[in-house]
């Protein structure tokens, strides 16, 4: 058994979704097995230790469509070593997306389908190299992989975001200003309602006397005409 474990890729937004996850390709791990076919074994975390390497891929005992009820681990994503050349060219994205084939998810004639995973897991995976049906190398089981669960839509609370400082400032200051204006209006009307205003503050004696003069003048003129 090789010591390395399969690992999730780094720096991808979609490294785990609700039904898929993305693994690093097993590059430069299986050294000399040029005739071997490398399979990915996927099992639930609790069923991983019970997996027997002599299980054959493509049989009902390892069919994806019966996972996880009748089948405790399925085998998929078969490839020869030629698909995983070593050394890895720098800058290439080398990933395996587990769960990407939706077309064969219910097609029992394709037991090695790489179908979407049925639940959030946790799952463990390992790579198994088979020559014919003889296992020749395998990696260790990976760390448990848990997929994302979607929270229900109704759990989003749209309760008001509270009151910002600006809104409180506007409301309180404007209310105070309006109150002052109304109070001033009331004071103005009451204190000046009896026409007692104006005599003590801004008196305009010249204009007063001009008014009286005009009144006399008009009366004189009217009398004169008659």
């Amino acid at each position, binding site marked *: 058994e090789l010591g390395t474990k399969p690992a999730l890729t780094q720096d991808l*937004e979609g490294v785990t*979704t609700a039904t898929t996850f993305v693994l690093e390709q097993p590059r430069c791990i299986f050294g000399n097995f040029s005739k071997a076919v490398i399979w990915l074994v996927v099992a639930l975390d609790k069923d991983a230790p019970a997996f027997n390497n002599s299980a054959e891929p493509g049989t009902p005992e390892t069919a994806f469509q019966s996972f996880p009820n009748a089948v405790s681990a399925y085998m998929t994503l078969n490839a020869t070593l030629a698909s995983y050349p070593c050394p890895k060219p720098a800058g290439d994205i080398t990933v395996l997306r587990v769960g990407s084939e939706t077309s064969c998810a219910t097609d029992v004639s394709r037991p090695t389908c790489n179908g979407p995973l049925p639940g959030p897991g946790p799952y463990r995976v390992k790579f198994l190299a088979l020559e014919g049906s003889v296992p020749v190398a395998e990696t260790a089981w990976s760390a448990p992989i848990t997929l994302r669960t979607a929270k229900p839509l109704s759990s989003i609370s749209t309760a008001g975001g509270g009151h910002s400082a600006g809104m409180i400032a506007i409301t309180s200051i404007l209310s105070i200003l309006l109150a002052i204006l109304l109070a001033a209006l009331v004071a103005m009307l009451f204190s000046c309602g009896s026409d007692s205003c104006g005599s003590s503050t801004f008196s305009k004696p010249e204009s007063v006397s001009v008014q009286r003069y005009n009144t006399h003048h008009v009366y004189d003129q009217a009398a004169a005409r008659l």
Partner: protein
Amino acid sequence: MAKSDDCMHILQGLLVFGNVVIGMCGIALTAECIYVVSNPHGAYPLLKATESSGIYAAAWIGIFVGLALFALSILGIIGVIKASRTLLLVYIILMLITFAFEMASSITAATNQDSLTPNVFLKQMLERYQKSEPNNNSDNEVTKTWDELMRQNHCCGVNGPSDWQNYTSAFRSTHSDADYPWPRACCVLDAKGLPVNLDGCKLGVSGYYNSNGCYDAMSGPVNAHAWGVAWFGFAILCWTFCVLLGTMFYWSGIEY
């Protein structure tokens, strides 16, 4: 005597100046509110769908308040120059009514802004985007608006593509998670509107999908409009307060 005359004339001058400023600000307020009303930004259908478009009510009130301020400022100037008690009393009372309306408009614009949290848009998007049996036209509008928004601003979801993963949605019930971890509109699209690299988009490789949320692009214009209406109204009202106090003082000093 001469001193009170000088005071009178200074007060008259100040009041005329104050009213001129109010008149000009009234025109400016009308212009600003007409701009806000007639220039709905791209996310307007979303606002309408949240039934929280108080900003438009506030802007409509602002248009009429601005015109009223302009008319009243002319009345005020005439009243101050003629030193007429009746004209000034009418002016003061009408100005107080206008003050109250503008106060309502300003507070509505400010309150409306506070209620538009990201969660409001998130919930609406998850409920209505690509709803399979659209109940009414507004569901189609929501879908079209979101597609436009995501394509033009190169963004995805409200907080990011993980919105589609973190919550159930109408979209998720019709599109499988393996094929559509997030909508196609979140992918970087070529000139024909097809994803440049579909696998890269589904994996979430940077450069092939939009990783930012759209909330900033949406809330930017809405915020600018709303705070513009609210704060400009507030500033006008502060100035009007001073002018009105001065007018009341002047009124009480006029000889009958």
